[in-house]
């Protein structure tokens, strides 16, 4: 299975995503510069966290217009996997691959901590190694993670079971319905504010993010008979 981790000017969790894929799965993973227009050789694209273009104007806005995002749209339309983490989630909403927006945290401060998430949907390629309702510990680190969408969109997300993760206990940013991560209707594009790539070793304080990578690999393997 081949992974691509996109790199925009200002990305800073790209290396962490690469390390996580290598450490958890040992599968090949490339860093792909934002000017690339062909992603056809990859099975899963990770849009990593960080501050693409400084998060200036709106987080994710400038990056969403880069050449590589055209290829990400094609990749997603072909039913292949895309995960946006933190800034990557913001980029995916700005691109329109996922509905809604991520606004300033309601307390207006950046917040870094290990947060507790509830896995709401285990029928996705990203989460089938978790139990439904399982509470996992995954770090957050963001200033603009306050998910918002209008009521119609929220109703739709619920009806289609697109809410994948919610915050358990305290909501760290004011997001609507405690949303921490959502997927698209087809279930092959996931966006989440928390950082699973930061939770892959006990030494880092949690290894609960590992199951995301193993889920992806297993789903892909089942599909491709590997």
């Amino acid at each position: 299975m081949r992974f691509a981790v996109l790199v925009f000017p200002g990305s800073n969790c790209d290396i962490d995503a690469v390390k996580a894929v290598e450490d958890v799965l040992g599968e090949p993973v490339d860093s792909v510069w934002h000017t690339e227009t062909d992603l056809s050789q990859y099975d899963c694209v990770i849009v990593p966290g960080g501050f693409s273009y400084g998060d200036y104007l709106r987080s994710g806005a400038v990056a969403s217009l880069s050449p590589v995002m055209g290829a990400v749209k094609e990749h997603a339309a072909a039913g292949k996997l895309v995960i946006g983490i933190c800034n990557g989630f913001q980029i995916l909403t700005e691109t329109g691959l996922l509905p809604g927006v991520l606004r300033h945290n309601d307390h207006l401060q950046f917040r870094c901590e290990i947060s507790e998430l509830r896995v709401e949907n285990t029928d996705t390629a990203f989460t089938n190694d978790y139990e439904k309702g399982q509470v996992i510990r995954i770090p957050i680190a963001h200033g603009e993670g306050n998910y918002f969408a209008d009521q119609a969109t929220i109703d739709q997300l619920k009806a289609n079971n697109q809410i994948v993760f919610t915050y358990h206990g305290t909501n760290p940013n004011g997001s609507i319905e405690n949303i921490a991560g959502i997927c698209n209707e087809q279930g092959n594009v996931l966006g989440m504010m928390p950082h699973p790539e930061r939770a892959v070793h006990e030494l880092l304080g949690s290894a609960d993010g590992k199951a995301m990578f193993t889920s992806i690999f297993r789903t892909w393997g089942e599909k491709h008979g590997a």
Partner: protein
Amino acid sequence: MMIAKIHVTLKGSVLDPQGTTITKSLNSLGYDEVRDVRIGKYMEVKIDTTDRKIAEERVTEMCEKLLANTVIEKYEFELVEA
């Protein structure tokens, strides 16, 4: 040269947590008369053109594509000669 003076503000129905926080701080500083604060962006884009009509089209495009997120924001602009 022209300057597009662009106002990007939240759509009416969208809550403005930043505005709410500032309203509260103003109240607690003793400005009890403050009822509500809404926060938006103001941009000045300098454009090398003389054709007002083209400028209008182009700025509209820039707003739609990048300068505003039309899911929650609306924009407005005027063009002035510089």
